[in-house]
């Protein structure tokens, strides 16, 4: 309906982002032998040429979906820590589905694949929600444990039984041509999934703020007691936000296969689950802020990776970046209320 958060909180996010950029600007050159080139590579990241730009935008799209997954979980008061496994499982299930029906006509296959991907993620995360509902199993831990066991299992499948023997990569076979999403800016990876992501922002916003289920979800997330008092069936809102969140994560994995990798490669979607959390927090758990949030985050990550090329070594910079952003964004993150104790101390003592 209306965003009631004060404007000052947006300022704190801005400060956090600026600080993150500053950390990168200071840290990156220190890790490299040619600081100036590294720095310009970092800052120029996506603007170098259209190829970079396309890859950048493609990643923005996928991260928007991952971010939306966490926005919905957080709005519903649930902590989905299993994004990594859900994305990976979404990618794998898409691949397996399409490899098993190679003769299907394109659009049908794509629609089927999207459903399979989202369904897989929703089932996995929904299980954690269901366990929370039934037996009060902490969803944060259970989703992480399940996700981790899935990640290693899929690693095994992709490097073993499902591995494409002809490829030198640890990768499954590629999906048939007719299933691949139209490319928007070849030779970059930019494809139709970016548009899907933008569409999903709109859908997510509509769902959360303009449907009765979204209202129920948000009220339950903000104050479960109040929701119950109003007759909202709060029990099912352990499962719904988790399932939606997992579904979106799975979808991100599926779209990655459909438009970018065309196969499940070991570790290729790694980091997307954590990035979803970081981006949702930058977006202040609001779907309409996901686009700028994803752009900012991807810019940082992309730039850092780009800078690595000019350093004499390379490594996964993602984890460090995620950590920095999480630390900075959540300090004084007062609007964030998952598991926060309700009511001040004064209120607890006074009548």
């Amino acid at each position, binding site marked *: 309906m209306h965003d009631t958060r004060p404007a000052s909180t947006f300022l704190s996010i801005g400060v956090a982002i600026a600080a993150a950029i500053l950390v990168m600007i200071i840290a990156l050159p220190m890790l490299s032998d040619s600081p100036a080139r590294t720095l310009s590579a970092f800052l120029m990241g996506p603007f170098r040429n259209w190829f970079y730009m396309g890859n950048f935008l493609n990643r923005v799209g996928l991260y928007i979906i991952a971010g939306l997954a966490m926005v919905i979980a957080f709005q519903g008061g649930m902590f989905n820590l299993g994004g990594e496994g859900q994305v990976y499982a979404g990618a794998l299930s898409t691949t397996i589905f399409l490899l098993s029906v190679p003769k299907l006509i394109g659009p049908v296959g794509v629609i089927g694949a999207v459903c399979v991907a989202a369904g897989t993620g929703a089932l996995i995360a929904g299980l954690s929600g269901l366990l929370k509902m039934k037996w*009060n199993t*902490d969803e*944060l831990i259970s989703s992480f*444990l399940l996700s981790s066991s899935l990640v290693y299992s899929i690693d*095994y499948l992709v490097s073993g039984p499902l591995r494409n023997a002809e490829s030198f990569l640890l990768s499954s076979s590629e999906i048939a041509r007719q299933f691949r999403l139209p490319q928007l800016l070849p030779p970059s990876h930019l494809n139709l999934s970016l548009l899907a992501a933008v569409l999903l922002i709109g859908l997510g916003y509509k769902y959360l703020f303009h449907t009765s289920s979204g209202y129920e979800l948000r009220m339950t997330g903000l104050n479960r007691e109040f929701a119950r008092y109003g007759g909202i069936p709060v029990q099912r809102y352990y499962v719904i936000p988790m399932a939606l969140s997992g579904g979106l994560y799975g979808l991100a994995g599926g779209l990655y296969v459909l438009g970018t990798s065309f196969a499940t490669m070991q570790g290729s979607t790694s980091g997307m689950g954590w990035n979803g959390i970081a981006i949702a927090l930058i977006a202040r758990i609001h779907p309409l802020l996901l686009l700028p949030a994803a752009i900012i985050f991807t810019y940082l990550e992309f730039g850092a990776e780009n800078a690595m090329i000019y350093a004499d070594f390379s490594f996964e910079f993602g984890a*460090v*970046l995620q950590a920095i952003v999480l630390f900075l964004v959540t300090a004084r*993150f007062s609007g964030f209320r998952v598991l926060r104790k309700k009511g001040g101390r004064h209120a607890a*003592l006074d009548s």
Partner: protein
Amino acid sequence: MLHSIVEIMTPFLLAGLGGLFTERAGVLNIALEGLMLIGAFSAAAVAGTSGNLLLGTVAAVGISATAAYLYATAALHLKANIFIAALAVNLLAIGGTQIAAHLLFGTKGVIEFAGFPSLPSISIPLLSSIPVFKDFFTDHSPFVYIAFLLVPISAWLLNATPFGMYVKAAGLNSTALFTRGVAEQKIKVLAITISGITCGLAGASLSFNLGAYVPNITSGRGWIALVAIFLGYKRPYGVFLVALLFAAAELAAQNAQGIAGAPASLLLAFPFFITFIGMIIFSALHALFLRLQEKNRY
């Protein structure tokens, strides 16, 4: 076989006992994994270069505890969400150890040190001669005994000292503690710092056992320790039993690999999976217990 189980359980037990303090203080500490990884790296780096295990242990404990203290302070005083801050610790541990490994040793893979000191193997004179306890007290690294010793010490701290009382009160009703003039924030920071200390020890024990540092050496042990706290009913001796159980399961899996030839990568998934199952069973039983209790009213 019990002998190997005891070795395997040690890191679980150490991390679990530290995490127990934060859990009782009302903080779900999901940073155990990262803290343990930081400890493992620091221990290997310092012991490997200095050739001194004690120095390595001190470094592991010091750095891991500092990291825990910083994250606790950031979370509790800057009002950051504690889970997000802990998540950041875990991610920073992965990326940070990698960067440090590169800067210090020029590699991001396995770091091997020439002449890495080997862990002394100790037997406890009297206890090792009792048949039942033999495997618990014969030919183990000092870390095993430290972990054993920490079980009664934790129980004593929690149940018999003012500090333990504050920890429990912080978890049960922190406002009550505050109105009695005890700063519950400090208690929570202290509890998290304790978990940093024990995770440092746990990490050191991992690295020293291998005599090298391997990326992701902890491979989820921190998370498993966290679950062990719940399954052990948030009590030191309970954590001990659950750690023993998990270690047995892990050993069984390793043996299965040897016999049935299960692939190594699948083996990595196993601990997470078994912990997940354990957690489900536990919470189902606990829910059942609560329901029965509800029925048996006086």
